[in-house]
């Protein structure tokens, strides 16, 4: 028998009451229970960053957090960045700078970048590279991604 537990999450501003398996990760619940498949699954050991989401203002590898640990938390996923279908400046900058190639790592990159800019609105190149060091991109569009983050920061300044 799989043991379950009731939890409540606020995901992208929407309150969700769920009965989740106690061993399921936040990633499992986002993708399989809530059908929010924008958050991606790759390494499952917290190294690739594809599953990055924001939990109570901090970036988390959702593959490393049990869903029950997120009980009561406020969570933002990539689907929460453009709630009315209008791209955020960060998403627009990713498009304009060609940062999304195959695109699989991009949701995670966006969440890390979003959190970085929230805590450091005017990062240097080095700070962006360090801030996104936990997000692997095998297309290796790192410079395009950095450029998008920096352009967003500059745009916010104007």
């Amino acid at each position, binding site marked *: 028998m*799989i043991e379950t537990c009731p939890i409540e999450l606020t995901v992208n501003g929407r309150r969700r009451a769920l009965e989740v*398996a106690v*061993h399921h990760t936040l990633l499992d619940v986002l993708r399989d229970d809530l*059908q*929010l*498949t*924008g*958050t*991606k*699954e*790759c*390494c*499952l*050991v917290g*190294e*690739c960053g*594809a599953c990055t989401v924001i939990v109570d203002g901090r970036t988390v590898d959702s593959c490393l957090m049990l869903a029950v640990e997120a009980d009561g938390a406020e969570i933002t*996923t*990539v*689907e929460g*960045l*453009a709630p009315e279908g209008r*791209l955020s400046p960060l*998403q*627009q900058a*990713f*498009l*304009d*700078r*060609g940062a*999304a*190639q*195959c*695109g*699989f*790592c*991009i*949701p995670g990159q*966006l969440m890390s970048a979003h959190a970085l800019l929230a805590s450091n609105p005017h990062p240097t190149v080095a700070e*962006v*590279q*360090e801030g*996104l*060091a*936990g*997000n*692997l*991109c*095998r*297309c*290796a*569009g*790192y*410079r*395009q*991604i*950095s450029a998008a983050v920096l352009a967003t920061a500059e745009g916010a300044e104007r």
Partner: protein
Amino acid sequence: MSTSRIGASPTRVGGHGRVTGLQQYVADIRLQDVLQVKLVTLDCARARIISIDTSAAEQVPGVHLVMTAADLPQPVPRFGPQFVDRPVLAVGETKYHGEPVAAVAADTKDAAEEAARLVRVEHEELPAIFSVAAALDPDAVLVQDPAIRPNDPLARTNVLREHRFGWGDVEAAAASADLVVEGSYVFPMVTHFAIEPHGFMAAPDGDGIAVWSSIQHPNWLQKILAKLLDLPLAKVRVFAPDPGGGFGGKQHTKFEPLVAFMALETGRPCRLILTLEETFQAVRRVSTEVHVRTGFRTDGTLVFRDVEANYLIGAYADIADRTVSKGSYASCGPYRIPAARILARSILSHTPPSTAFRGFGNPQPIWAVESNMDDAARALGIDPLELRLRNLPRKGEAFIPYDTPADGDWEQTVRRAAELIGWGTPLPPGRGRGLAVGMKSGPTTGLSYSTVRLLADGSVVVYAGTSDMGQGARTVFAQIAAEELGAPHDWVTVVMGDTAVVPYDQQTSASRSTVLMGNAVLRACRDVQAQLRAMAARLHGVDESEIVVERGVVRLPDRVLPIIDVLKPGLGRLGGELIGNGEMRKDAEPDHPLGGSAAFFEFNCTAIEAEVDEATGDVTLLRHATVSDVGRAINPLQVRAQDEGAAIQGLGHTLMEHYIFDESGRIRNLGAIDYRIPTSMDLPLELLSETVENDDGPGPYGSKGMSEGALLCVAPAVAAAVRDATGAVIRDLPLTPERVWRALQERPTR
């Protein structure tokens, strides 16, 4: 109208989905009543399977099927793109760590995983082959059952194929050389590490089957499945959602047949998403040991080259042997060489099957041959740049006999890369420079069809069977159609990834799609333009011969009209559309050693300035210049991203990536914790990417393929810079800090 859309960088088609999370990769597609599949594997490479007890696994609630080889048609079906050698499930013995012996299908992932753990496989571990030396030992066990390749004189060896190429008289040339430089160079096993792990689904579909796969070659998969399942092609529908990175690792059929048999057995959709660890066991680059011997005159002129390359492929051939033949064929490099001898072997081993990987068998000999050029430059006392320039063929000059002549101004590329890092200017102590060239034959055969529909309002739908795995093929095809048919870029839809809808395309590989499919799209547009010409002749009472339709406009004798102004009245009240078809074919050449000459060459020069921490062996790249001859960049933003991406991916096998095996053939650094790929913190301090564009490629508007070039010669350029900086000589990749540190301790006194 100007050529404004060509050479511009409009927003990526499919980009919106990629930045919103709405893009659906295989693992994101939800099928009703789907069963989750988990593979059952053994914890060693080679083992004899004595018995498989599935009873406990079958008791797990929610389990619908535990499939073993015994449940498959007998003999167990085998498949492969080049050799029909890989069984759907292991038969009798496993041949590599990770080869599935059974698979479970259950209602949930939890149940599938639990049941997979409960499948009891009684087995006996057997001696196995993990190296070139062990494989070539006359007493070596055979990896492959000789019955798989009857009538092959090599069947009783571990050599799958030997390839011999060459020209001129090497022995005579060797006698006349002033200097002979030789060395052996090792290239490790590395893995693709696409961030999207491979995903496969299959479902019964009426009297046929539907299959979803993150695959680069959907039509090739369709052909293999049709054969295995004894179905007509029309009853095998392959959905190929854009792969989340391919790099060659998703070219060919892997577990689609297994999932298809499971779906047919259960009557339900079955879904297998590999873990990252399982992808390490599914795909890798061929590791290679290359011995190079090259003769020179004292002025640096090449006299002969003799290459022996032993490629350690895996337990099954996949497309690895083709990487061996194609990579070794070009292994003498982009040089004028009067005499060449090339011997390459595809050697079977009890390791994960290797396959295509960006560069397709070329980076391995390039590592060797370009390092050998650097060794020679030192021995001759000639600047390494000058040594290359002295031997590069000029544009139009044949350099591999009977193949495509040099198709670019390669000297321009090499000089520019050198210039970008200030070649020849003084450097502070402790720093060094290195430079190398990389060349790769493009596709040797090809067949692409495209259909283009010009709809009544002037918008366009393009059908192209290419897989857009990040290179941006959709965008390039949209640009071509927009340019030719005069539609706004965002009025073009590009449909891919469904064999029931999209016309045939041979494959997405060898950086071919802009050239081959691009030409098919262009020809389909030309077909539509021809119909517009007839339409305009009818509407305006002018002879067709007096009308030209090109680049979005209709040129009448007395005026120029936008296409829409002919299309709308031409279609009339009922509306409708114009449908154009285009075909681009590069036929096989039966007498050619590779079955076909190069459609184009990818040519790159990489120049590096590096510094080495003598205490730790850590290499810092201060400048990394990559210059690629791309003919014409249809989309410069995407070209640069591909060029930089290839360069950085090349830094992976150069500085950090390699499989480490234990004595049982298990990959010890399996997964993202212990196997490192470049992150945003591993970039060169300056990365300079430029293109040479002389509009001299065979693709639309003079374009060439370019997505692999910048990876080809990263390793020899970096190693040459490290040597220039420190005197340390390294012939085994990767240049890990430990390896560099050891080489520093052993370096010859300068």
